[in-house]
């Protein structure tokens, strides 16, 4: 098992390097550079050329690549050309808001999704099942940003219960952190809850038809215990795969949610870096996102071990 994990981690490093090479050339294939964002609209051609030279943007692409990639293999992602801070710091400062948002959104998605899915399966073909599936369909259909704007209008502008936008770091006030993240987490997690609910329902329906469930019931076990201990546990493996994918989707979804709710997270940093053509940050951010994806995949694979004793990694 340790050998398996070590092998997976080794392949992750190789993946990161390949991602780095691809992202460098893809980003540089897009026209434009950071000078327009730095100098403003009224800069003359001479000023633009001088800045390009100072930032080495006038160098041939392969020279820029060697310089950047040489740093990456030494663990140095370079410095932001727009913000003039090390990329690792720029991304590091944005990880807490993004991490908290992704965590809470996943919590919303899993709690809501699994609970509703189980209820719908247990109450199969009743109005409760139909109602849950209607809500799930709604969740899948509503764009997250629209739901977010609707919530801002209702809970921030009209009712003034929650702040409209922004973020307070955990270290300053954990309660405020939660107040600022309630709406973003719900708007981001809701669509994923819908996906998880549908998968849980389908998987539970299969499990509830299995012989071991019938056996458990015939032993006289209480229905709650049958559903949770016997059916749900067995139904969770495909659900877990969906949850893993959901985390990845949530990680992508933070980009829009952070913009709508003005959360200074990594997603907004990526958007802003694209607009500014801040290559080093963009390259570093893509590598970081790829790392999170790979790590989540590994953790999901490992979690199968705990759920299904038949799974072995060697």
């Amino acid at each position, binding site marked *: 098992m340790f050998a398996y994990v070590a092998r997976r981690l080794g392949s992750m490093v190789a993946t990161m390097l390949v991602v780095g090479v691809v992202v460098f050339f893809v980003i540089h294939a897009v026209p434009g550079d950071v000078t327009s964002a730095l100098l403003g609209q009224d800069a*003359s051609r001479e000023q633009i050329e001088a800045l390009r030279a100072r930032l080495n943007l006038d160098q041939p692409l392969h020279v820029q690549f060697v310089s950047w990639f040489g740093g990456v293999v030494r663990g140095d992602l370079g410095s932001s050309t727009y913000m003039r801070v090390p990329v690792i710091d720029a991304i590091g400062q944005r990880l807490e808001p993004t991490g908290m948002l992704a965590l809470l959104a996943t919590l919303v998605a899993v709690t809501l999704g699994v609970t509703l899915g189980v209820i719908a399966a247990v109450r199969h073909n009743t109005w409760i099942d139909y109602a849950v599936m209607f809500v799930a369909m709604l969740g899948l259909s509503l764009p997250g940003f629209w739901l977010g704007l609707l919530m801002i209008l209702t809970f921030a502008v009209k009712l003034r219960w929650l702040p409209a936008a922004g973020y307070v770091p955990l270290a300053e006030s954990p309660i405020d952190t939660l107040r600022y993240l309630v709406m973003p987490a719900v708007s981001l997690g809701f669509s994923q809850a819908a996906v998880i609910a549908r998968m849980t329902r389908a998987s539970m329906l299969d499990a509830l038809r299995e012989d071991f469930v019938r056996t458990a019931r015939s032993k006289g076990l209480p229905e709650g215990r049958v559903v949770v201990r016997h059916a749900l546990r067995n139904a969770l493996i495909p659900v877990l795969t969906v949850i893993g994918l959901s985390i990845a989707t949530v990680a992508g979804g933070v980009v829009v949610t952070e913009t709508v709710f003005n959360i*200074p997270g990594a997603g907004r940093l990526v958007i802003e870096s694209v607009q500014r053509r801040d290559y080093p940050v963009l390259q570093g951010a893509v590598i970081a996102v790829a790392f999170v994806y790979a790590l989540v995949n590994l953790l999901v694979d490992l979690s199968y071990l705990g759920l299904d004793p038949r799974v072995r990694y060697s």
Partner: protein
Amino acid sequence: MSRHPLRWLVFSLLTTVLMVSGVAAAQGTPVRGGSLRVAITGDPPTLDPHTSTAVIVLEVASHVVEYLYARDANGLVQPMLAAALPEVSEDGLTYTIRLREGVPFHDGHVLNAEDVVASLDRWRRIGTGKAYMAGAEITAADDHTVVITLPAPVGVLTSVLGWAEGAAVIYTAAQIAEVGDSPIDAPIGTGPYRLKEWRKGQEVILERFDSYVGVDAPASGDAGAKHAYLDEIRFISVPDAATRQAGLESGEYDVNYRASASDLELIEASDEMYAWMMRPGYNYIAVINHASPLMQNQGVRRALQAAIDVYPLVLGAFGDDDVFALTASIVPREYGAMFNDTAGAELYDVGDPDLAAAILKESGYDGTPIRWLTSRDYDYQYRGTLIAVDQTTAVGFNSEIIVRDWATTVSIRNDPTAWDIFIGNFTIAPEPEMIQYLTSTYLNSYEGSAEWRDAMDRLARTTDLAERQQTWAEAQQAFYEDAGAIQMANTFLLNAYASDVHVEARYFLFQAWNTWKE
């Protein structure tokens, strides 16, 4: 013998505070204290106006740093760090600038001539100053006197030294020695606020500078006294316009910097907020790329000029006619003396398809596609371009629209071979020599006709008001006849304030001094 270079400005056409519109919100007695939360459109690239002409840079940095002169609400240049307007030699080559004494920087150092020499030298080396002060000698005559010796007269030098965009701000000589030509992220200035913290990508926090020594004159526009009533100003980066507005409505922010024109009605109908229209904001024009072989055909340019029906185009682009004003004048009325809405006006807003078709036929246009460059990142550019393409196609032009994201659009615009025409908002200035798209070093490579160049050469050398007005009228006429660009409208920008925020004096840029909160 010396003479006052800008005396003519006192004859300005303005008698009222025309840079200001909207509700006068300074009622009651100012209250000291509080924090102003300003939702701005994004994190500024730097706080160093020497290295960036972006308006947001100056609007944040102007609370921290100051320049030698500043414009008052009537468009007149007034002293700021200088003790008086400069003394200019008879030949217009030597400017002697006396500085105010006892003006402290935020680090305790007191302003002297060396600071000004170092700052002006840096500004002309890496900033917009190069266009006006290349080859000039800048020296300190004594501790509080700076002398600028020019190789040739520059009629607008004082004006430029008091201009906001890409401003000639004054830093300490020590900071310039330390930072060199790199952008300054922690400016040490003489302004009423000093930098407390810049959380990059999130917010810039300024705090009151208690030792500020300002000008002893009434506050007016960018000039005069600067009262720092607020303890703190927080410029919070909020790129999404809907979020800025929702934050203002929910009380999260005190100012929505750059509200959407579509929110104007809502803001005006509310008791909890009010709108301030920044005018003049920009000049909405179709900039022609004079480096493009197709656009070097004057007949083609004139046909474009005759084809454009301005009002429907600008209304379609901006959606509300409260946010723009049609004008033939290249220098807006609000900036005073150089406003002229008659010279060349017969060629403004022609909108005559038959005439345009006839001119086009005569020009020998062979159907080569005209490349209209635009970006959907700014709706007003894209919508205006679509309408312009429609209007010009109707008279026989073969148009091709290049739609890109903003960064790519800027990159394409910098390539003289890649585009023909671009519609957008361009910054305007009080003097024609300071308007970038009228200079040959700008992206549109405008050299102009012989008449234009002759008039602009004469304009650059004169400071006499009547002569300047007459010469500029000739230049503007030549500009229209040459169809140098297609002038359309002044467009205004909108800032929205919570109703408990009071502003005593306003300029066309955002300022939070002379501002207090109930």
